[in-house]
């Protein structure tokens, strides 16, 4: 078991990785637990950012700038996804006057 004092005082790559994992987990929790579609989309954004953090950590670890390019592209994709997603949310709201995912289930079997 590593020394706790060292863990706290000597910040290394592992810390970033674990932080990314925790952020990702919180994002998953947000998607699963919240009822409002907008919050769910924000949680998805959180997951994407956790991924960004992780890849940047590995880029620093290996000195590879490709990670930065990757992270850029991820951001672009996230932006595109948000645009379309929010348009869909607005469209749903127009039709149903609510965006409660508990009630949005007509795409079932």
């Amino acid at each position, binding site marked *: 078991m*590593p020394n706790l004092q*060292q*863990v*706290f005082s*000597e*910040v*290394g*790559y592992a*810390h970033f*990785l*674990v*932080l990314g994992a*925790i*952020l990702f*987990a*919180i*994002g998953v*929790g*947000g998607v*699963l*637990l*919240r*009822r409002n579609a*907008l*919050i769910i989309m*924000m*949680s998805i*954004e*959180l997951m994407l*950012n956790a991924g*960004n*953090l992780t890849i*940047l950590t590995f*880029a*620093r*670890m290996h*000195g*590879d*700038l*490709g990670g*930065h*390019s990757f*992270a850029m*592209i991820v*951001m*672009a*994709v*996230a*932006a*595109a996804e*948000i*645009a379309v997603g*929010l*348009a869909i949310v*607005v469209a749903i*709201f*127009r039709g149903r006057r609510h*965006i*409660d995912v*508990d009630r949005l289930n007509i795409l079932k079997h």
Partner: protein
Amino acid sequence: MTARIAIVFLALGLLGGAHAFAQPAAPTAVRVDQPAPVPVEVRPPARAATPAGKGITKRDQAESPKLQPTTAAGKRTKAGLAFAFWGFAALTVFGSLFVLTRRNLITAVMGMVGTFFALAALYMLLYAHFLAVIQLLVYAGAIMVLFVFVIMILNKPEDEPFAQSGRFGKFLAGLAMVYLVFRLGAVLVDVPSHGSAAQIAAQNAAPALTSDGFAWGSTAAVGWNLFNEYLFPFEAVSILLLIAVVGAIAISRPFKQDEQDTPSEAAAGGH
């Protein structure tokens, strides 16, 4: 109900068992005072090497005194780094917890913005300067603003924040998520540090300049990398953005019956 409890226990048992399996088998005969076998050289990876983070044990410290900062400035740098990290990490997590728990949507959005700010700071710590700024501009500046717009449009009153249906499945998913994080942590704990002291010291130093002479992580460096090696993905992403724009417009167009021209007008106005 009892079925669900049983499933939970089963899942926990599986997790524990699988974790035990996933470990290399526990030592059955530990011989401490053996003449040490000749260690076979592990070929170090091509680039700069393994992290000198959590894996550092006392032995490594003993053998690589260079790792311990000796100067006061060095000690302060190390402490400052730790402070910064923990502070921003805490801000990140708190912000995301806001998203998870707040009923008021605007509050959630604000939390999210805080997260993004902290993340940008963390990117700075990772020498990803360009991306830190881009993060602020794109995420906190554009995407969150878009969220605020949509929230204003929808103007829904607050309601019960947490989803009610399918709670058992979500509970299982939560357990699975915890397990995954735990596995990640276990991997990180198990990976020992490698390399000699000099290698570790070199790793902790600031990154070297790129081959084109730019600072690592700067705009120019990222730009060179992006437009030279990853040009095709860049162009593809551009098209993706175009598609997204068109799609967003298409989805948010008003319905046909709202604005249908009457046939006579169309005929009169047409050819």
